[in-house]
């Protein structure tokens, strides 16, 4: 027969368990790094191809993002299978990024074929900032919050930047918003600061 709990013991159990559940965010560093590096390579590559004029359609380098989409679908399906817990935070962060993905897809379909991507980059930069900042707030991770703010700042700078140099701002934005926070997040999980 189990001994009866005192109210203090009960509160200690509740507090302990709530804390264990609270610190349970899934490790999304792989996705930040995947997208960070893909966009970084595409934007720098696009810039170099435009400068050197070696191919007729330098914007085709962005086809690489489709590879990232396919890998992401595979990665998420694999991860879902292994997932032992679903937190509300993970769910909200997931939906925020899903909304961002749909918006980017919509933009690429509607405006992409009008061949005026460069004028859109300030908006795209601003859009990168929002889900990044929200994710940083949701999982209480400062580098993501800073990354989001950097994107917003770069969006304003992009408004006054001459044409193709905006591509370099894009590379800088993903470096600050996804690549650096991605590595820091990975290190944090490795050190078990977050429970998986």
């Amino acid at each position, binding site marked *: 027969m189990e001994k009866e709990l005192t109210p203090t013991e009960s509160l200690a159990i509740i507090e302990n368990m709530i804390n*264990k*559940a609270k610190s349970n965010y899934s490790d999304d560093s792989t996705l930040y790094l995947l997208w960070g590096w893909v966009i970084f390579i595409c934007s720098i590559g696009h810039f170099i191809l435009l400068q050197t004029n070696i191919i007729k359609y330098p914007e085709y380098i962005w086809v690489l993002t489709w590879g990232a989409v396919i890998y992401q679908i595979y990665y998420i399906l694999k991860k879902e299978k292994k997932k*032992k*817990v*679903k937190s509300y935070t993970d769910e909200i962060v997931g939906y925020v990024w899903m909304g961002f993905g749909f918006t980017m897809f919509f933009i690429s379909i509607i405006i992409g074929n009008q061949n005026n991507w460069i004028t859109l980059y300030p908006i795209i930069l601003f859009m990168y900032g929002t889900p990044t900042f929200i994710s940083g707030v949701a999982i209480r991770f400062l580098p993501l919050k800073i990354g989001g703010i950097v994107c917003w700042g770069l969006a304003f700078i992009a408004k006054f930047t001459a044409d193709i140099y905006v591509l370099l701002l894009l590379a800088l934005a993903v470096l600050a918003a996804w690549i650096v926070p991605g590595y820091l997040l990975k290190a944090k999980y490795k050190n078990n600061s977050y429970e998986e």
Partner: protein
Amino acid sequence: MFKDLDPILHSQLRLAIISLLIGVKEADFNFIKEKTKSTAGNLSVQIQKLKDAGYIEVTKQFKDNYPLTTCSITKQGVHAFEIYVKALQGYLHTDKN
């Protein structure tokens, strides 16, 4: 002794399970076992009791040929937990006075 406290929740392991589930959307059996540091046998019994009381929902399925039990708290469970915490607060305030 603590007659106002819900006997279903006033047990070390059942209270731990409910407190864990209140903070997440759903959790599988192994996660709960790991976090509550309980044995599989005892955990199964306590999960069944919480399920019978209508405090949690239990879904059983197969993943890669292995059975997988997923638990989530119900509205009734959340309500019972809130009442339990209020009752606890009552006892703690009485202690202080």
